[in-house]
């Protein structure tokens, strides 16, 4: 099973290639939308990349509780565990 840090590392990697260069430094506790400037389309793009990376389906229901990369890593870990 993937550890939280492994999942988080993958999220940060995907954020790094998705976000435009010259933006704020990517940190695990920054708000994905308010601090990192992601819009809803970019969030969906990132989720699809994560689904492919971990071979999981991410239910949309988990997203309202996700503000940061750390939150997302926690949710993904639960999904990975359940699948």
């Amino acid at each position: 099973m993937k550890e939280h840090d492994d999942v988080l590392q993958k999220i940060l990697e995907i954020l790094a290639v998705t976000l435009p260069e010259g933006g704020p430094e990517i940190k695990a506790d920054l708000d994905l939308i308010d601090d990192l400037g992601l819009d809803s389309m970019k969030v969906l793009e990132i989720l699809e990349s994560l689904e492919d990376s971990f071979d999981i389906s991410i239910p949309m229901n988990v997203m309202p509780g996700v503000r940061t990369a750390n939150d997302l890593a926690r949710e993904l870990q639960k999904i990975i565990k359940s699948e």
Partner: protein
Amino acid sequence: MAIFDKFQKLAVVREELERHHGRFLNIVMEDIRSATEAVIDGKPVILAGTNNYLGLTFNDACIQASCQAVKKEGTGTTGSRMANGTLSGHVALEQELSDFLDRKKTIVFSTGYVANLAILSTLVGPGEVILLDGDCHASIYDGCKLGGAEVIRFRHNNPADLEKRLQRLAERKTNILIVVEGIYSMMGDRAPLAEIVVLKKKYGVNLIVDEAHSLGVLGENGRGLAEEAKVEEDVDFVIGTFSKSLGAIGGFCSSNHPELDLVRYASRPYVFTASSASSAIASTRAALQVIRSQPELRTQLWDNARNLHRRLQDLGYKVGSEPSPIIAIRYDNIDEAYAIWNGLLERSIYVNMVLPPATPDGGVLLRCSLSAAHSPQQVEKIADAFASLSKNQD
């Protein structure tokens, strides 16, 4: 924080739009002269963005039926379908839709939006799963949100991606509902329904097709994509709207499940809203008769769609590969799209401009929709207006 502070970002975007693309925010149809003509900013324009696929908003029989109903039964029902809001017309329309679609049961709702809200929030709940195409309409997303089911998107029109997700759910032993659309509202493309039906049967799950943009448009009898793809028996639920090819307002769900009627008692969007006015029900009934008796309208619609699609393709506009009554041109940024949209309006042509997040991939769309009521000359005028602006195309 004041109550409106959370809209600050939206206010900034709106101000920006007002400053640079103000006309887009302030379109008012000052006069509607026919199914294809209106007056905007004091000038007559050809309407090429109304979803009025068969042009029935000005059909004589529909108008007459609507006028008679309003005189006979008044302007509104002032009540829910569960109380005083079920009139004989609602019941008759449900039966006529069942006959038309060759299904056992139909429920009529107040709008197409409410139909999706009602069905998706009620048919499946906690512990069950909805698998929806990523490009589905907002009403489908909102219906999913209102219910308690787990909601999983699959990549648009991608049966392989859908199957991957079905495989992951195989151990779950729960009810799964796939949701797709007949024709997708933004890009005008169709669901690969035959392939999706293969998966539905292989995994023993349920399937809803929202035929909002394909009813009256596809199929030998106008029953939509399921009829065209010859898979009607494998579609469990058909959702539709009266506000497009039927030229009024309202929505429905039809099914061969005899238990569909139970939704009436379990669905809050059905119970807690007023029913459609008799005038809308009456014109919809008349429009359904027109769809059944005048297949030539579909032929005319498709001739118009193919003609405009060919002209735009020849001009170098980035349109989808297949002709469709919805023809969308994608731009990377709003300035490019607005220049064409405004140029078209200057040339007396109205099309829709659609901004993200309402567009599938974050681009800006100029979206044309054709009508059987467009004359060949009007289609030529629409194409000529695009031609006069085409020097900017790659």
